[in-house]
């Protein structure tokens, strides 16, 4: 393990700061945090560039960026930009901004990258199915006491714990 320049925050302190950011998001904009809808809009915008007619034909995508709608002019896309920027700045200040692959000790880098891609695909598919990801559903919905968000939260942990044992060699 490479030596970090600056240690990670105490998780309870990190959580408190995250809670304050989440509260401010609700207080100012009336909405919470999120990432997967931003990804969705970026994806539709990219597809619209190459195949606008296809975007118009698929109902789910047309609602986001069909016709004259600009999929990128959307709060989630700006939040996504901010998340990238904030993450990069924090990583830079803490000396963690460098090219590397984080993986378990027993698997090769290419296996890790293939699994990361596959995991991202599965995760994003599930996130759109659930109408929100860990941030948009569990974190934001949980803070405003949405009933469905709590059911969702336990489903995520349930799904991950159920498969964790089978995949223990990937991470340990």
């Amino acid at each position, binding site marked *: 393990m490479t030596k970090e320049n600056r240690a990670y925050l105490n998780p309870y302190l990190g959580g408190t700061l995250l809670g304050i950011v989440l509260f401010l998001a609700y207080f100012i904009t009336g909405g919470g945090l999120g990432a997967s809808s931003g990804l969705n809009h970026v994806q539709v915008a990219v597809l619209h560039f190459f195949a606008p007619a296809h975007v118009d034909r698929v109902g*789910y995508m047309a609602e986001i960026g069909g016709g004259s709608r600009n999929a990128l002019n959307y709060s989630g896309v700006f939040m996504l930009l901010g998340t990238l920027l904030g993450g990069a700045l924090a990583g830079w200040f803490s000396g963690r901004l460098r090219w590397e692959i984080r993986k378990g000790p027993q698997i090769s880098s290419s296996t890790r990258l293939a699994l990361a*891609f596959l995991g991202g695909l599965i995760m994003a598919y599930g996130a759109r199915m659930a109408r929100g990801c860990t941030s948009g559903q569990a974190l934001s919905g949980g803070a405003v006491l949405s009933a469905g968000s709590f059911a969702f939260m336990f489903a995520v942990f349930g799904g991950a714990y159920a498969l964790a044992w089978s995949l223990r060699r990937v991470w340990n």
Partner: protein
Amino acid sequence: MAPYDNLIHPGTLLYFVTFLLIGMGFGAVLEMSGFGDSRKLAAQFYFKDLTVLKVMFTAIIVAAVLIFLATGFRLLNYDRIWVNPTYLNSEILGGLIMGVGFIVGGFCPGTSLVAAATLKVDGIFFVLGGLSGVWAFGETVGGFEDFYNNSFYGRLTLPDWLGIPAGVVVLLVVLMALMMFYGAELAEAYFAGKVLDWRPSSLAKVAAATAILAACGVLIGVGQPTPMAKWDRLKGAWENKLETRDVYVHPGEVLELKKNRTLYVRVLDVRPESDYNLFHVAGARRLDPKDVAAPATRTELLSAPDNTVFFLISNGETASTSAWKELKAMGILNVYIIEGGVNKWLEVFPPEPCVAERVKETRGNEAEPLLYAFRYAVGSDSRAAHPDSIRTQPWKACPSPGAATGTLAEASLPSELPYPANLTFTRKVKLQRKVAVKGGCG
């Protein structure tokens, strides 16, 4: 009163900067908490490092306490903030799928962005996988739309579902989180092979737990404002609409809008049940004034389609105006009052002479009496109840003089309208769409 989404318009620089800054705070905190490292995230599922659980639930309880303190002290209007609507089945299945993706890929969408931004190649691959995943969903959702949209419960919150005050629910969530934190500390020690110590590891943790429990105590003590209390706080913005009578709509306009197929007109009748049974506008639903502020009503009205226009009606304007204030404070859009109430409605669209007649003397000393004496309870079985369909539907007429009262005879379509064809009125309804800001990933 917050939120200030009505000041932040899509497409402006302020909109861009606001969301960019919120995103920056989000990304920075995730990075500093170590969420850019997939190993740290995955360790959650082997009980070695429970940072994910600790950060997530700390954030949830801190944000929940702050949000409900803000709403309790009437700084923030809970009815106007975005609460993820509940689609139970798709949320549970989506959650399970995400759990699988989490353990396979080592990130969730938000954390993968931070990993990618700090140049972790696995994070970048996860984001690319994520873009493919949302694309795959968009292509396939058409095949299971019924499942995707079923088990819809609208804006269902835990306080509404459990029927207990929001402050108590926050306290329960905080207690659950504190117990999970305690269990997490023990689990980490156990899996690291340390000797288990049942005492909390530091005084700071005890102090923090005490502080958040105390905050819950304040929350429960303060309570959440009733719609009328919120009205007192918000009325500055709307009171003049009552004075200028901008929200009082002539019955003729209601009739015109009922014929407008792009709108969904709903008439809410806030009179006593007996008056409602005597006569009501066709399609009107009775809403007991004391149920106006009930959570079930709020949930239902808030999840009405975007193109719904609500009209409140009472005999005069007193009860409907007071319900209007409550609904307005609850954040319901497109609510109007029918000018002059049922009494004016019947004046504009007169009932059959054998059904009711206008009286000078009123029954008892009600605050808002019905000025028509009905021979029997007609409900909406009178031409006055549905003047919009009077030309197209078979209707009934008064029987010849001498026949028994209490019944209307079948008749052909009327040759002429029983009211002036061209009513003169000023149009007042302006459809307002729900604000585009939808929180989170929704």
